[in-house]
Structures are given as structure tokens and as C-alpha cells.
């Protein structure tokens, strides 16, 4: 009973007075302990404890934290309620444990590795994302977002919004236009179908580095309407202007948002000469050749390293434009053209570009209706290029001959570490052999990386 108290005394050095008082009380009460069986030290908590408790209770009105001693801060933080208003806590508390509690109480799944191992950042990013996801233009108060800006602007680095709700009026119209077909509804709603304009928010976040947007509605179920998924031209304009103003942006993802050629060109026009942009992801959109040409222009007018255009409708013209850009480019390291219709013409163009290119490390040409000619050209690429490490030809019709040619080309190659030829109709034997070669290359690369990095000092 007395031992923990003594321990407390020894720890509670700074509050000398209450400590001594309690000591005196101890001495005084020692006589009575025997007589009074109901006596307990626990009934009288320390003054520091009481103070801390008081601070915790009144933290909202009178937040005292910085002036406390470290161990007291710890106690206060452990006891603080997670429901305190953000205006109080946002800029005052930087303790990770507190924010961890906030996060885990609010969300079941919390993968901190996606948020730079910072609970606070995670909390604010997800909080902001939630607000944006539930934001309904013209009905939700825009101050809800604006008030949050000063609180979270120092912590938000990434915005991942996979849902933008359209204005509410549409629902009423929907009811009225239920009888008519969806086409007319499409034309009717364009005027008032604009989503929330991110410009104000994004430009106010100085540390924003990654932006992952999807203009669409999740879990609509039986309420599905085409116009729920309408990324309007106005939206595109707003977004493009906002992204241009956002100078620290490194990663920009705009997926599943019905981005067509015009919008792509609009976006690209605003993204030209962007100082930081490294990754661009426009997958699962409706980009055709013109859009691809615009993106090709962007490749050489920016610092893009990663470009993802998978699941679009790029045909050989767009692929040729991209290939042309690729031939001159020296920054792009990864290109993804999965699920397009590049076909042999585009594939050959890209292959030719890769003969001269020395920076690209990874290329994905899966599901592009490629045939033998591309394979022949790529066998040549494999013999010449020494940077390319990852090629994906899955789901193409390369044929047995194409596979053999690739195997031949791979014979002298030491750089390639991954080569995906699944469902490419190259034959099991060839695939196995290629796998062996690639495996050997990978081992060699691993050994090389083992040899070299330890030589470097930590």
C-alpha cells in the first residue's frame, strides 16, 4: 500500500510542496493506520494528480500542455478525450499516441505506413477526406472545409478522395426525369452538375504532395444514375487551375473519372512545366489518341517519372506520339499502357523508341493486342537496351515464334529482372526458359546490390 506512494513521491520531484505535505501526512497518519481499518491512501490522490485531472477536464477551455513537465504531459495526453474539438488540439498536441487513439477510435483499419508513419497526419488527412467525400455542393456549408484549413494545413500531405457527390437538386430532377431516358438527363444536368471546387482547399495546403481523386459515387447501389459519374468540363477547369497553383504536388492521380481527350488536354495544358510533378496517373479513363498525344507532350515538358495510362482507349496513333516523346525523354522511368489498343503499330513504335531511350526501367504493355512483330522488335531492344528491367507482355498474342525471338534477344541481357509473359501464347517451354534467364538476372542483380551497398558507409 505504501510502496507505490513512496514511488510516486520519488517521481513527483518538481511539486515539492505537496510531496512534503504528503510525507508529513504519512508520518502523522502512521499512528492511526492500525486503529482505522478503513483508512486508505488511495482516497487522497496527490495534488498534482488532481491538477492534472482538472487540466484534462477543462482542456477545452484552458489548454495547458507545453508548460507541464514531460511526465505530466504524458499523463494529460493519456487521459485527454478524443472528442475534443480540433481547433483546440490540432496545433497544440503533437503527441502520436493521442492521435493514434483518435484514429483507432474512429476507423477500424489504420495502416499508418501509407501516411508516412504519422498518426496525426493520418488523422487529418482522413478527416479531410471524409469531409470532402460527404460534401454536397450548394447544400453543405463550405466553411466546414474552410475552417479546417488552418488546422490541418501543416499536416496534410496527401489527399485521397474516391468520391465526389453531385449537387442535391439532381435528385429531384431525377425523380421528375425518371420517365425519360438517361440521355436527356445527361444533357439537362450538365449546368448544375459541377462538383466541389478543390481550388480553395488545395492552394491553401502548402505541404500537399499527393492528390488522388476519383469523380464518382461509391455504393450507389440501386440508385445508380449515369449522371452521378459526370466529371464536367467546369470541374476539370477548376481542378486544372488548382493543380497548377499547387507547386509542391508530386503525385497526381485522377482515375475512373471519365476523363476524355479534351479534359486531358486541358489538364496537360495546366500541368506543363510543373516544377515538382513526378507521377501522373490517368488510368481507367476515356483517353484516346489526342489525349495520349497531349500526355506525350507533357512527358518532355515536365519531370514526370511515372506515367500510368492503363485502361484507356489509346490506339496506335497515341502510342506513336508517346513513343516519340519517349525517344527524346530522359526522366521517365515507368510507363503503363495496360488495357489499351496500341496494337502492333504502336508497339513497334514504342520498341523503336526504347532502342534509344536509356532511362525507362519499367514498361507495361499487357492486353494491347500485340502480335509477333512487336516481339521481334523487342528482342532487338532486349539485346541493346541495358536499363530496362521490367517488361510486361501479358495477355497478348505474341505467338510461339515471338516467344522464341524474345528468348533469343534475352540471351545476352543482364538487366532484365522481370518479364511477364503470362497468357501471351508463347509456349510453356519458352516461358520457363525466359523465367530461368530472368531469375538468374535477378540473382545477379541481388548479389550486385549486396556487394555494393555494404561497401558504402551507412
Amino acid at each position, binding site marked *: 500500500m505504501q510502496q507505490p506512494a513512496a514511488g510516486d513521491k520519488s517521481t513527483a520531484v518538481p511539486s515539492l510542496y505537496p510531496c512534503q505535505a504528503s510525507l508529513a501526512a504519512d508520518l502523522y497518519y502512521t499512528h492511526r493506520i492500525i486503529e482505522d481499518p478503513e483508512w486508505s491512501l488511495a482516497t487522497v490522490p496527490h495534488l498534482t494528480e488532481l491538477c492534472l485531472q482538472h487540466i484534462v477536464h477543462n482542456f477545452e477551455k484552458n489548454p495547458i500542455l507545453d508548460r507541464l513537465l514531460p511526465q505530466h504531459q504524458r499523463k494529460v495526453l493519456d487521459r485527454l478525450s478524443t472528442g475534443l474539438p480540433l481547433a483546440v488540439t490540432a496545433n497544440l498536441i503533437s503527441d502520436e499516441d493521442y492521435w493514434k487513439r483518435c484514429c483507432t477510435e474512429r476507423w477500424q483499419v489504420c495502416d499508418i505506413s501509407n501516411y508516412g508513419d504519422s498518426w496525426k497526419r493520418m488523422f487529418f488527412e482522413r478527416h479531410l477526406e471524409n469531409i470532402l467525400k460527404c460534401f454536397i455542393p450548394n447544400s453543405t456549408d463550405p466553411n466546414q472545409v474552410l475552417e479546417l484549413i488552418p488546422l490541418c494545413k501543416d499536416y496534410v500531405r496527401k489527399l485521397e478522395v474516391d468520391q465526389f457527390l453531385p449537387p442535391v437538386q439532381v435528385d429531384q430532377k431525377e425523380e421528375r426525369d425518371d420517365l425519360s431516358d438517361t440521355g436527356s438527363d445527361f444533357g439537362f444536368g450538365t449546368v448544375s452538375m459541377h462538383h466541389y471546387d478543390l481550388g480553395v482547399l488545395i492552394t491553401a495546403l502548402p505541404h500537399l504532395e499527393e492528390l488522388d481523386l476519383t469523380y464518382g459515387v461509391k455504393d450507389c447501389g440501386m440508385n445508380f444514375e449515369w449522371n452521378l459519374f459526370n466529371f464536367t468540363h467546369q470541374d476539370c477547369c477548376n481542378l486544372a487551375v488548382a493543380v497548377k497553383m499547387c507547386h509542391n504536388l508530386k503525385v497526381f492521380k485522377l482515375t475512373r473519372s471519365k476523363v476524355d481527350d479534351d479534359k486531358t488536354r486541358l489538364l496537360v495544358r495546366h500541368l506543363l512545366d510543373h516544377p515538382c510533378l513526378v507521377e501522373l496517373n490517368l488510368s481507367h479513363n476515356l483517353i484516346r489518341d489526342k489525349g495520349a498525344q497531349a500526355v506525350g507532350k507533357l512527358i518532355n515538358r515536365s519531370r514526370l517519372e511515372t506515367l500510368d495510362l492503363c485502361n484507356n482507349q489509346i490506339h496506335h496513333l497515341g502510342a506513336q506520339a508517346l513513343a516519340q516523346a519517349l525517344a527524346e525523354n530522359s526522366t521517365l522511368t515507368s510507363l503503363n499502357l495496360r488495357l489499351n489498343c496500341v496494337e502492333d503499330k504502336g508497339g513497334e513504335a514504342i520498341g523503336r523508341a526504347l532502342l534509344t531511350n536509356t532511362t525507362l526501367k519499367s514498361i507495361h504493355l*499487357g*492486353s494491347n*493486342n500485340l502480335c509477333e512483330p512487336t516481339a521481334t522488335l523487342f528482342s532487338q531492344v532486349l539485346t541493346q537496351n541495358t536499363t530496362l528491367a521490367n517488361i510486361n507482355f*501479358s495477355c497478348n498474342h505474341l505467338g510461339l515464334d515471338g516467344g522464341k525471338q524474345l528468348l533469343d534477344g534475352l540471351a545476352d541481357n543482364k538487366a532484365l529482372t522481370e518479364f511477364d509473359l503470362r*497468357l501471351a501464347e508463347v509456349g510453356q517451354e519458352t516461358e520457363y526458359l525466359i523465367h530461368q534467364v530472368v531469375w538468374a538476372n535477378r540473382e545477379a542483380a541481388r548479389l550486385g546490390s549486396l556487394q555494393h551497398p555494404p561497401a558504402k*558507409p551507412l
Partner: protein
Amino acid sequence: MRRGAGAEAAAAGGRAPAPAPAPALAPALALSDPGPGPEERIAARRRRIAARLDAKRREALGEDAEPKVAEEEEEQRRSHKQIEESRQRLAKLLFDGTQMVTNIQVAADLRETQRRAEEAELKLQRVEKLENEAKSSTSKFEEITSKWALAKEMTIPQELWQLLNQQQQQCALLLEEKNKLIGDLQQELKNKDEQYVQAIKKQSDDIHLLLERMEEQIRITLKTYRHKLLQIEKAFELERRELLDNNRKKWEKAIQAHNTQELEYLHARMRKVEEFEKQLNQLRVEDEEEYNSMKIQLENDVQNLERQLQQMKAIYQLNQEKLDYNLQVLKKQDEENTIIRSQQKRKLNRLHSLLNNLRTKLAKQEKQFGEENQSLAADCERITGQCEEVQRRMRHFAVSDAEKFTEVWLMNEEEAKGLMRKALDADRIIHTQQLGLPWEEPRYWFLNNVGPLGHYKAKRMATKLAAEVLRESSSEGQEEEGREKKEEVGSGEGGKENTVKVEDRVTPLQNISKKTAKRILELVSEESGFLIESKLLRPLHVLGRHERTLMKLDSIFAALEIDSEDDLYQLVDFFLKYKAQEVAVSQSQGSPGGEDVTDLAEDREDGGSSAQRDELKSPRSSLGSLPSVYIHADDILKILKAFVRDFDKLREKDGSAKEVLQVRDSSKDGEYWEALAHVIPEPTLKLWDALAVALEEYYEVLTRRASLLAEAAVLQQQNSELCLLLEEYVSSGVNSKLLSPPTRWMDLKLPCAGEAR
């Protein structure tokens, strides 16, 4: 992996050329492994690299160590191999797993592409179909519409009805076809919906499969990882145990060696200790002796020092007393000094105040004296004024005194002369009447003298002189002579010189002939009329010529400030000189005239000269003055100007001389008066004395006789009176009343009283 490398490094360290630190190094490494500090790790890595390089070098140098190394390497590689093997297996597992998982995606992609291809095909077909349909339907519609035109031409109702029927049928056919197409499309839509549902199902299946696979993959990988980890750990433990054993053995060996060495050291130490003890004892004895001697010496020293201390104390006491006394004295002095200082201060203050007072006083006095000075200056002025006044008065008094003097002189002279005359008369009477001798009146020079001796003639005023000159000019010759004579008569033996002097002064004018002087004066009066006031000029006309010139001259002299006789003489003289200078060359006669003038003066000095000579000379001088007549009227002004210029100088020269001349010579006065007093000579006086004595005697006799006569007369009178009185007394009644009447007694006394009287 790293730990394995560490073990390898440790082994390499064991192989290193320096075998001694090896046993210590190994446990250190073993200890450092569980808690890997960054520095230790760096150090370990360096060692590893060094070992590797060493190994390479050795390989290059020779194969001597090769078999051993190979052996050891084989032994060491056990854990390594284990790791490699498990790593490869795991990598394969991972690859397979990802392959399995991604297979689903790839399959989905393939399906999607296939679907797309089919879709595209179907779409094409559909579009073709629709186009065909549209074409056919439009052709049919055109056919129908063309028949409408035909129908208008129809007139026969049956035909029309038939046509209409046909049309209806065709329309129905068209509609049917359209409806069929719509039905087909709707069927297709339904199919698509079903396909969509199937696709969704398929997708969910895929996702399920994916999840399953992923979970399975995770499970398997976890399991294998754990397994492999265990295996690796086992391998490592084994290795560690072996290493520990090895090291322990080495350690024990080293400990044993160390123990033996320690024992040896101990023995050596014991021996040395004994030796040192012996040395110590020896040293102790020596030191004791030394100590004793030292002690004695020091005690002596102490005694000496104590004695000195006592002495010092005594001196100290003495000095202290002295100093105390001095201190007292100094304190006293100090007190006195303070008193004196305060006094001095007070004095200083007092003196300061005094000084201030004096300063103020000084200022006051200065002011006062300034005022006084001013007043005195004023006084001085006043006094000088008074002085001047007094001088003026004095001059005036001098003049009056002189007058009075002459008057007194004359009076006294008169009186004296009267007395003298009386004396002479008495003498004459004595001589003639008493002695009966003839008396002759004595003749003395002073008897005729009137006025004070040596008294200059009062200077005549210039105008008077001028008037005189003018007047005399007419009766010139005679008057001069007369005057000469008069002088000759007047001059006696001693008075001659006096007259000579007087004459001397007059000479310049005198020897300039009156004529010339007159001539000059007349010229002056006429030519310098401008000097005369105009008021005066008018009444002058009434007067005669002579008077007019006089008046004119008077005013001219007033203007030229010519007051005295001398000035006039000078003026005339100046005229003549000027003329003489002018005419000196041409007139040879003028110069002998000048010489004559000097000659004349010499002659005068010689004393009384003959009147003849004078007379002879005067015409000459008149001759000499002839040329002056020719003085041109125009020159007068020039001459006057020059004269006025020189005249001032002359005046100044005279100024002092004039006053000296005023002082009279009174030396002869005494003589004069003495002579007057002794007018009766000595023998006569003696005679008088003897006569006087005789007469005195005669007089005495006479006086005695006279007094006796008077006495007799008085006595007679008294006698008569007394007789009367006696008669009276005797006759009175009183006498009868008395017992004894005085008459008895009176008879006796009365003659006594008469006798006494």
C-alpha cells in the same frame, strides 16, 4: 545475414596475423551482437572488409593457407548456406504467390480484352444490322410514301381500298420489322444485363479467390518464414556454441598461463619486499641518529631565537611607547591645527568681507574723488580766473602803487624838504640870532630834486607821441634845442647817466627827423584809410587837416595794435629800414646818414655835448631823411604787412623785458634820504649840542624860578582861606555844648595844618 557475417568476421579476426588479441576480440564480438550499437557495427563491418581484403591478398599471394581456409569456410558457411537456401526458397514462394495472385488479374484482363473484342465485333454487327435495317426500312418507307401519291390519283374506290390495304399491310410489316429489331435489341440488353450480373458474380468470385489466395499466401509465407527463421536461428546457435567452446578453451589456456605468470610475479615481489625491508631498517637507524643531532641543533637555535625574541619584544615595547607618545603629540597638534585652521578660516572670511567692504569703499571713493577732481578742476579754472583777475588787479595795483609811491614820495619829499627848510631856517636863526654869526645857505644837489629817483618817464601813448611829433614838426628846431638845454640844466653829476639812458631810448625817433616821421605818419594815415571804421570817417571831414590825421592815426594804431611809444618808433624805424634796403644801392648818401646815426649815439654817450654839434647834425639827419619823402604811397601797404608780420615777434620778445624794466632801482633812495637827513653838517650839530646844553641849563634855572613864584602865590592864598575857616568854626553854637570845646585843641592844631599845607 549480418550476424552470420559478424561470425565470419570474428573468424577472420582469428585468422588475422596477430593472434594475441584474438581471444579477447571474439567474446567482445559475441557480447556486442545482442545489443548492436552503431559504432560497433561500423567497426565490425570495417573488420569484415579488412578480412575480406586480406583473404583476397592471401589468395593472390599463394595457396598455402588455402586448404585451411577452405576447411574453415566450409564450416562457417553452414549458417550462410542455410540462409541462402531459405532465402531462395522464400523468394520462389513469394514469386509463386504473387504469380498466383496476379494470375487472376491477368485472367481478368484477358477476359476483358476478349470481351472488348467480342463487344467491338458485336457492336459492329449491330451497327451493320441497324444500318441495313434502316436502309431497308427507308426504302420500304419511300415505297409506301410513293404509293401515297399514286393513291391520290386513284379514283376508283375499290382500287383505292386495295391500295390502302396494301399500304396498311406494308406499314404493318415495317412496324413489325422495327418491333422485331427492338425486341432483338431488348433481348440483347437483357442478355447483357445477365452477362453483367454474371460478370459481377465472376468478379466477386475472382475477388474471393484473390482473397483466399492472398490469405493462403500469407499463411504459407508466414509459416515458411517462421520455419526458416527457426532453422537459421538453430544454425546460428550451433555456430555460436562452437565458437563459444573454442573461445572458452582459448580463454582457459590463457588464464592458466596468466596464473603461472602471476605466481612468478608474486614470488619476485616477496623477495623484493624482504630486500626493501632490510634497506628500510638500515635507513631508519641512520635517520634516527641524524634526527637526534638535528634536534639538538634545532633546540639550540630555538633558544637563541627565543632570546632574540625577548629582545625584540623589549624593543617593540619601547618603540610602542615612543610611538604612542608621538601619536598623542601629533593628535594634540592636530587638534591645535584644526583650531588654528578654523580660526584662519574665520579670519579669512572676515578679511574677505573686509576686502569686499574696502572694494565697495574704494569704488565709492573713486567716484567721490572723480567728483572732487571735477570740482577741483572747476575750482582750478575758477582760481586761474581769479589769479588772472588778481594779476590784473596786481598790475592795476602796481600802477596805482607806483602812482601812490610817487605821491607818497612827493609828499614825503615835500615834508622832508619842509623839515630841511625848517632845519635850515633854525640853523639860520641859531646862527644869526643866537650866535650872531653870518649864515650862508648850503647848496646840495638833492635840494632841487623833485619826484622819485630814477623814475622813468611814463610812456607816452603812441597817439600822443604822434600828435606831438606832428605838432612839433612845425616848431621843430627851437624846441629841440630848448629841450636839450633843459636837460643839460637838469643833469647833474650823478643824474647825467640817467638822462643818457632816457635819451638812448628816444634816439631812434629823435635821430629820425621829425619831418620824416611826420611825413611817414601822414602817409600811413592817408593810405591805410581802410583800417579806419567808416563811422569815424564821416565826422572827420568837419575837422581840420591836422586833427583829421590824428584821428585817423588813432584808429589805425588801434587796428594795428600799436599802443606804446616804442611801437610807433619801431614802425617808423621799420619804414626807414625798408626804404634803406630798397634804395641802398642807388642812394649812396643814405648810408653815411645811417653811420651818422650811430655816431650820434656814441656822441651822446660821451656825455653832455655841445648844442652846436647837435644842431650841425640835425640838418644832416634831415638831409638823410630826405629820401623818405619819396616813399611811394603804393609801398605803404606792403611795408605795413611786413611790419605786422614782424611786429608780433618783436612784441613777444619785449613782453618779458617790459616787466623787468618796470622794477625800480631803489639803491639810491637811501642815499638820497640820508643826504636829506644830513642836510645839517656835523660841526654845526656839535655846535647845536653845546648850545642846547647851555640853553637847558638856562631853562632849568628859569623853570625853578617860575615854580617858586607859583608856590608862593598858592601859599598866600591858602593862608587867607584857613583864616576864614577858623573864624567860622569858632563862631558856631556847637562848641558851646561840648564839655571840652575843640576850640581849645584847635588853637594848637590849626597852625600844624597850616604848616603842612
